[in-house]
């Protein structure tokens, strides 16, 4: 029990050292001590003169820091969403995008790229809005007689994903090849050339969504026992489930609208946490998933921007790491990864 507690505390604190070491990583080599001095000086003596070139500070504060922070909140968004959806749907194979958010966001981005290319922020706004639209469509389709049973939500999610993907295909068909490349790359998921702007737009939304799921983490335990049981125990299943799904969609849409579609984190991280901690109790699984998700994405992005001189799409890295790892988990645990 003590060991468990130590493990949990360590995992919860892990993002901090990873954040700092991520600031050491980058093609422009600045040695770690200098980075630390730069950080210290900004706190203690911001306006004074410095023994290092100004470009160092630009790199640390304008290029690396917002990007690492975006990876941090993005990791939280994707993994917490995955964990909460897996609890609410009572299924370990549920992925962050099961309600159609990725298809919606992709369609929104394609519309922005194809038809509103000149307007700044159009891609981001449209992908955020369409991600939500996809969720609401799924929810409405699944509703019957005032209830939204889990199986209906899953099926509706499949239908909505297919529908939005079909519309996306039509748009691609009518788009010139140059613009089309933009859509393809957008969907691959990348944190390249982001900055304080995108971070300040998405971080508050992600943190609000996270706060909601965090406060409901015990309630998700009860929901995971099944609709009828939860109802008999006194839970307003429809309302509570909707709140969790809404918070999850908020986090994911906000992040996807600036970073594209980065997969596997929502699937792999909560699983790993449940295995490591040996419990499905969301009171620890949710916060530890947030932590581990942040670490995973920060490390993946560190690789994406330092392995080659150009940018690798981070979505490709998370899949290359996530998919084999998931395969390994599946082999190890057989079909039931819960136990």
């Amino acid at each position, binding site marked *: 029990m003590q060991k468990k507690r130590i493990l949990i505390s360590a995992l919860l604190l892990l993002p901090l050292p990873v954040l700092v070491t991520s600031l050491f990583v980058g*093609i422009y080599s600045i040695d770690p001590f200098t980075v630390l001095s730069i950080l210290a000086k900004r706190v203690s003596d911001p306006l004074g003169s410095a023994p290092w070139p100004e470009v160092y500070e*630009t*790199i640390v504060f304008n*290029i690396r820091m917002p990007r690492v922070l975006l990876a941090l909140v993005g990791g939280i968004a994707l993994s917490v969403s995955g964990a909460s959806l897996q609890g609410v749907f009572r299924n370990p194979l549920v992925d962050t995008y099961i309600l159609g958010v990725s298809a919606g966001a992709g369609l929104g981005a394609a519309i922005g790229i194809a038809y509103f290319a000149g307007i700044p922020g159009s891609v981001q706004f449209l992908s955020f809005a369409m991600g939500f639209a996809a969720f609401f469509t799924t929810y409405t389709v699944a509703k019957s007689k005032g209830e939204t049973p889990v199986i209906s939500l899953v099926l509706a999610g499949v239908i909505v994903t297919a529908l939005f993907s079909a519309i996306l295909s039509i748009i691609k068909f009518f788009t010139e090849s140059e613009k089309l490349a933009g859509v393809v*790359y957008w969907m691959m998921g990348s944190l390249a*050339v982001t900055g304080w702007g995108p971070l300040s737009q998405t971080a508050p939304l992600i943190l609000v969504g996270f706060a909601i799921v965090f406060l409901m983490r015990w309630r998700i335990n009860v929901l995971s026992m099944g609709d009828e049981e939860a109802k008999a125990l006194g839970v307003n299943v429809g309302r509570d489930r909707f709140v969790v799904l809404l918070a999850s969609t908020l986090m994911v849409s906000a992040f996807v609208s600036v970073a594209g579609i980065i997969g596997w984190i929502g699937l792999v991280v909560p699983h790993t946490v449940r295995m490591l901690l040996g419990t499905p109790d969301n009171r620890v699984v949710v916060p530890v998933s947030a932590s581990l998700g942040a670490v995973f994405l920060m490390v993946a992005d560190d690789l994406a921007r330092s392995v080659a*001189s*150009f*940018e690798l799409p981070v979505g490709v890295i998370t899949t290359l790491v996530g998919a084999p790892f998931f395969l390994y988990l599946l082999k190890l645990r057989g079909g039931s990864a819960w136990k």
Partner: protein
Amino acid sequence: MITRSTYRCFFVKRSTKALIFAVMAIVVASSAGMLLAGGYLNGSSGVKIVDMSGRVVQLNSTANRVVILESYWTEIACALGAQDKIVGIGSYVTSSVFIPDSVKNKTVVGNVFSGVNIETVLSLKPDLVIMDYGYGKSEEIVRALEGAGVPVVTLFAKNFADIANATVIIGQALGKQDRAQALAGYINGIHSQLMANASRIPVAERPRVLICNLDVWKDGLIYTYSNTSWGNVVVDVGGINVAHAGFGDKSWVKVNMEQVLLWDPDIIVIVGRTQSALASQISSMNDTNWLSLRAVREGKVYPVLTGSYDRNSYLDWTPRMVAGELQLASIIQPAHFASVNWTSVRDQLMDGYYGYLKS
């Protein structure tokens, strides 16, 4: 004894004065800093460029270390003799055959679609970045680079005039103004003469031309150029673009065989980026549908290379376009342009401005 009022008179007055002094000092210092950074105190040694998106870019002097993201601007820089100034390139520059190896070996920094590694660019310590604008992540890249103090010149070519314009701007930026003016003047001269001659051709003598690509999407449809690039060149050199009737407002349109039969063009121009792409298109025209077209039966099907994957490509958004236009002119109006040997213009260009390819 220090009373409250003494404290107020003495300390507060003193500290207020100190505060005012400090504020003034900060204002003066930052103003000086801004003036210095803005180059206003530098005087007239700067270079002022208005790029193709209308941005005014102020450089301290012509650039000696430049990062260029697209192959066409890189090609122009080489044609101007500035290849030694290139320190970094975009992802797709390496696939152009009109760029010398010495440039292709430079550090790859990314591209406008999937993003640019800003740190890589900064580590190359460039004075300037030249890139496309208006699509992909161009906005974010420009913002990030300028935020880091790197000037950016953005360009975009939609027609022939843009190519000459871009050449002049690149010349200004890289300190090759004279050569740029010469090249621009050379291609403009040939181009305007071609346009003038072509405009005198009466409508009755203009053939109906279909310019298309058969395997862009591999879905059996014919990707036809209408109100865009090569589609308009066809008209400029004295032809009629069959797609302009009915699809004149579209850049391109995908049509099926029925539409082509309806059009019944006099001449078919097939475009592609590689010889094999052209060959496969030609062989796909061996079926009965195509053979029922008059143009095919009469042998009036002409493959033309575009882009920069093959040394024989001349239709592209670079100075080579002038040879490409002449190439199309000789296909579409062989009688009127019999005296103009497009291959000699091509050779002039290749031996002259593109001579760097021979070394």
